[in-house]
């Protein structure tokens, strides 16, 4: 992975004004049809994507992932802040940038339904200035690779949802873009195709030095695919780290104490250095799950000593102690959940 930055968002803000339909006011009997409300789809978002990197953008529904993708591809203009692609300001050099970027938005809504997949690729390829001699072979290659080989000459309207999604990915790839933006690319794909697309994305990124941004709700895809991950919620960036760092960060902190009986977790959460403590019941019996601070080391150590001694004092038998393996899903839940509570 080189250090060259292909995509950069710098302090980007975007606010949408939405209208809410209101019910009749019971007291005054007056009806105000709409009430305007502001939605922050991006609130001071900054991140960079390097050449050869797969960047994951995660977040709950309505977090602002699609908005971020659209801002990079110039479909939505930020209120303030700047988006750069290959060092060029998207607002000022939109035309040039569009040649570098391939985008999959809602896949089923991309293609022209009366045409066949092959004709679609030729159409969009011509619009994107792909030289005529390259266009046809590349279109065939893409369709073969993605598994639409025997659907090349069937009208798109007769394809299934997943097949349309695959076609959308081909359309994004037809101009051989430097930057690939995939908004939920694996939605509706079967296991095999999802896998194939993951592999292809990896290959394209690593070997051909592209940058890829993926938004997804599938934590397994994100964990496997992405080098770095940003989590956003309500337009705010919660975290942006390397995937392994993100997982480490949380795995070290959560310890599970298997017990023979339930204890009151509030007592434990008061211990200095412990962030939270709670009881979990499983088929193997109750266990106390505590999350401890990462730093400073001494506080962390004290907290960890304190838990078993308290348990000893309360006459509780300790069966086993283990460190919880974190996966992205629990990290995600933890982060977005605490953001909601804040």
């Amino acid at each position, binding site marked *: 992975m080189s250090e060259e930055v292909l995509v950069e968002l710098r302090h980007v803000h975007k606010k949408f004004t939405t209208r809410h339909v209101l019910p009749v006011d019971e007291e005054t009997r007056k009806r105000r049809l709409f009430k305007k409300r502001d939605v922050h789809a991006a609130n001071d978002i900054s991140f960079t994507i390097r050449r050869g990197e797969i960047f994951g953008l995660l977040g709950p529904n309505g977090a602002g992932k699609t908005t971020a993708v659209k801002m990079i591809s*110039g479909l939505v203009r930020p209120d303030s802040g700047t988006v750069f692609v290959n060092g060029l300001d998207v607002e000022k050099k939109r035309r040039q940038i*569009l040649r570098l970027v391939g985008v999959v938005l809602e896949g089923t809504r991309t293609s*022209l339904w009366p*045409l066949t997949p092959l004709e679609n690729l030729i159409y*969009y390829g*011509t*619009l994107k*200035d792909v030289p005529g001699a390259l266009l046809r072979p590349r279109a065939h290659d893409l369709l073969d690779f993605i598994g639409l080989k025997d659907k090349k000459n069937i009208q798109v309207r007769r394809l299934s949802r997943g097949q349309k999604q695959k076609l959308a990915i081909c*359309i994004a790839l037809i101009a051989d873009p430097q930057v690939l933006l995939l908004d939920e690319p694996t939605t509706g794909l079967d296991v095999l195709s999802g896998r194939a697309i993951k592999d292809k994305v990896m290959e394209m990124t690593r070997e051909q030095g592209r940058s890829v941004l993926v938004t997804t709700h599938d934590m397994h895809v994100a964990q496997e695919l992405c080098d770095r991950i940003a989590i956003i919620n309500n337009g705010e960036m919660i975290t942006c780290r390397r995937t392994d760092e993100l997982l480490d960060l949380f795995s070290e902190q959560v310890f599970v104490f298997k017990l023979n009986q339930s204890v009151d977790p509030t007592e434990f959460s008061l211990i200095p250095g412990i962030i939270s403590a709670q009881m979990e019941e499983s088929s193997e019996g109750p266990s106390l799950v505590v999350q401890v601070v990462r730093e400073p080391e001494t506080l962390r150590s004290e907290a960890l000593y304190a838990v078993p001694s308290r348990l000893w004092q309360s006459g509780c038998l300790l069966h086993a102690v283990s460190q919880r393996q974190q996966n992205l899903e629990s990290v995600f839940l933890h982060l977005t959940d605490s953001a909601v509570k804040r």
Partner: protein
Amino acid sequence: MSFFRVMKAEVVRSFIIMRRYWFRTLTGMVIGYGMLMVLIAGFIYSKGGAGDKISQFDNPAAATNFVLGFIIGMFAFGVVGMFTQGLQSMATTGVLEQLCMSPHGLAVNFMAQTMVGAVSTIISSGILVYAVTWSVGGMLHWDMFPILILLTLTFFNLVGFGFMVGGLVLVFKQVGQIAIIVRMALFALAVFAREEILNQPWPLRFFLHMLPITDATISIKYVLSGGQMVDKITESGETIQVFSSVFTHPSFYWLIVSCIVWTVVGLTVFRILEDYSRSKGTLGSY
């Protein structure tokens, strides 16, 4: 040249669709012919008694005029419709967002689409005009050169107007419904536009001149149906018809003026509204 690449893509696309849905194309024309004949019959029979009816057929210039108006009206209806209905349906299918991401820009793409659409409309309406005038026994004066010039000017006039309405549709999706009324009005105007309707107090007259279809229709009717002849009173008091080229007709100059105005206004408004639509994020919503 970027415009020609887009044009090529659009030609291929609409050719494929036309071929794939040839039945629809064909029935469309047959139905168009049938409708026109019914309308003309209604037009003729509604005018006075049986005596008049005969004379109408003796002198079918009125019917020819009517047919021409009708077809120019359909052309206007279609061209502006490509900007409103076309844009709305593209927003619904999500293709609009893809076209916005084409490096040539939305305006160029629309221009190409409309041109391709207009060529096939002109060919099919040409056939229709010919078939219908022949059926009613009228006569058309195909003076190719002025006709091509007039059609081109009319086209850019309508395209400019269409760009303005289209820009509004991009931002305010509800405008699409109002646009239908506007298109109907253009249609009606084309059917009834004659030089006499310009005899109005000047603000109204100016307004009529500025509508994209008035002078276009008058000029085209002047060539195709009138044969570029004007009445002239000789010294001896007789009325004779003399040839007077459409290029010296005031409507022709008005047509050029409104063509320039609409192209400039339309493209400017479209650019501004496209930008506004991007900041509101309404390009892909429907």
